[in-house]
């Protein structure tokens, strides 16, 4: 643990060092790739400017996740309850992934206006697929013997869902959620490119048009940190939720 944290830090410093040195040696222009020192100082110094935009994007992502969950959970349950429904819907789900969402962005703007709704939908579209698929896999992975038991206990579908399938699928669910939240930032950012008044995507385009490339990269840094935060946040939530896996020591 300590060793790997140390290594991660070492790799990080090495990469940043190489990048910094490369910028100076090859005199890579700042407007193509600013050195990390400049990016970081911009990210810190311009925090008062960036923070409100980050809050907008953060809000969009959180709402996107909630919306995605609101769709993914009933969908996965439905497809689990009716295998023919799964077979019937899976081509549509796959197709929904192959559609480049940014192409729908202008449409969403027309339907939902320039508020946060369109961005939330964008993030949700990107997240819901991995969640649905992994939740369904989780449900399906439940051992047959447990199903027999619940059958004989006379448990109904909803009861079995709540007491058995859902906790059973939790580890899968979190795996899907973890993948989902990482790319959710991209969904929100694409949404913001299409039309927005605030948000990190908006700030990024604005900075780019003004050729303030250091600010563009500072925003990317913030976005990456938000992605990491979400990743580890979900990991933390997973650990708390699946409490029965925490300490596997056995009382003998």
């Amino acid at each position, binding site marked *: 643990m300590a060793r790997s944290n140390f290594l991660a830090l070492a790799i990080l410093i090495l990469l940043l060092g190489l990048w910094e040195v490369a910028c100076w040696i090859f005199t890579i222009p700042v407007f193509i790739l600013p050195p990390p020192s400049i990016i970081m100082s911009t990210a810190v110094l311009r925090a008062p400017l960036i923070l409100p935009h980050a809050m907008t994007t953060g809000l969009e992502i959180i709402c996107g996740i909630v919306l995605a969950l609101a769709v993914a959970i009933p969908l996965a349950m439905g497809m689990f309850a009716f295998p023919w429904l799964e077979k019937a819907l899976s081509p549509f789900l796959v197709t929904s992934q192959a559609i480049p969402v940014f192409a729908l962005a202008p449409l969403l*703007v*027309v339907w939902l206006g*320039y508020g946060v709704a369109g961005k939330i939908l964008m993030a949700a579209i990107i997240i819901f697929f991995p969640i649905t698929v992994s939740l369904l896999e989780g449900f399906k992975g439940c051992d047959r013997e447990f199903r027999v038991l619940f059958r004989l206990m006379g448990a109904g579908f909803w009861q079995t869902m709540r007491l058995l399938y859902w906790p059973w699928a939790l580890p899968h669910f979190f795996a899907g959620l973890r993948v989902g939240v990482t790319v959710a930032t991209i969904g929100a950012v694409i949404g913001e490119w299409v039309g927005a008044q605030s948000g990190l995507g908006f700030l990024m385009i*604005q900075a780019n*048009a003004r050729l303030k*490339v250091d600010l563009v990269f500072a925003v990317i840094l913030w976005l990456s940190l938000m992605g990491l935060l979400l990743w580890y946040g979900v990991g933390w939530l997973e650990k708390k939720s699946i409490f029965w896996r925490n300490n596997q020591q056995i009382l003998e």
Partner: protein
Amino acid sequence: QKLTLMLDWFPNIDHLPIYVAQEKGLFAERGLEVEIISPSETADGLKLAASGNVDMAVSYEPQTIIAASAGLDVKVVGRLIEHPLTTLLFLKSEKIKTPKDLEGKKIGYTVPGLMDVMLKAFMSINGVENYEAINVGFTIVPALVAGNVDAVMGPFKTYETVTMAHQNLEADYFELEKWGIPDYEELIFVCGAKTLTEKKESIRSFIQAVETATAYLRKHPEEALETYLKALPEADAKVETDAFHLTLPFYAAPGGSNAAAWQQFADFSLQHGLIEKPVVTEDLIHIW
């Protein structure tokens, strides 16, 4: 000699002289082999030209001034469209006759960082105080039709008007230069300072070829258009034809940019917050 040219946006009717020069062999007869590339983003051309990764780029005067102010070492070497095409565009209606009528309305703009500043300048020059500015990206027409905004800053009077007409929508607009914004050159050619010294002759030949093509298209507009449509099969012939006739007066006449006019726009930019550091346009413009 090979030259790479990055456009400001995807190929469109504004670039017709370049395609005519390419297809009619005007580059080839000057010993040039020109590769035309689309950018992912309008600022890409300036960055890549300044760093020497493309030889030349098509850009806008306002964005070039921003780049110069940001310290990018670029030179303006020629002109493609010599007056603004950018407008504040809206669906034709009795309600909007002068900019004053935009009081209290929702106004969209296309490029944050550029068109939002232009909009602000336009509104303050024309004494409009209350309005809501919204970034609509390039979803201009749907935003207008759906009523999300009442007008949009950024569309070209030679292009969006035509596409709208083809959808049976009648457009009206305010031309910026007629409402207090200094005249500027919509599309120009830039290259990196280093590229200019290294490939001076080729770049001069390129500019000459484009000027020759422009002269040709004035004489033979129909043939020029046909040449262009052949080079870009994905273009919609009917729309492009109408757009071409509207754009025809704006293709740049031979001769370089006017440093004094540029300086006027640069000063305007500084005054309205488009740039933060002053720009001396004499150093920016290369006179052949």
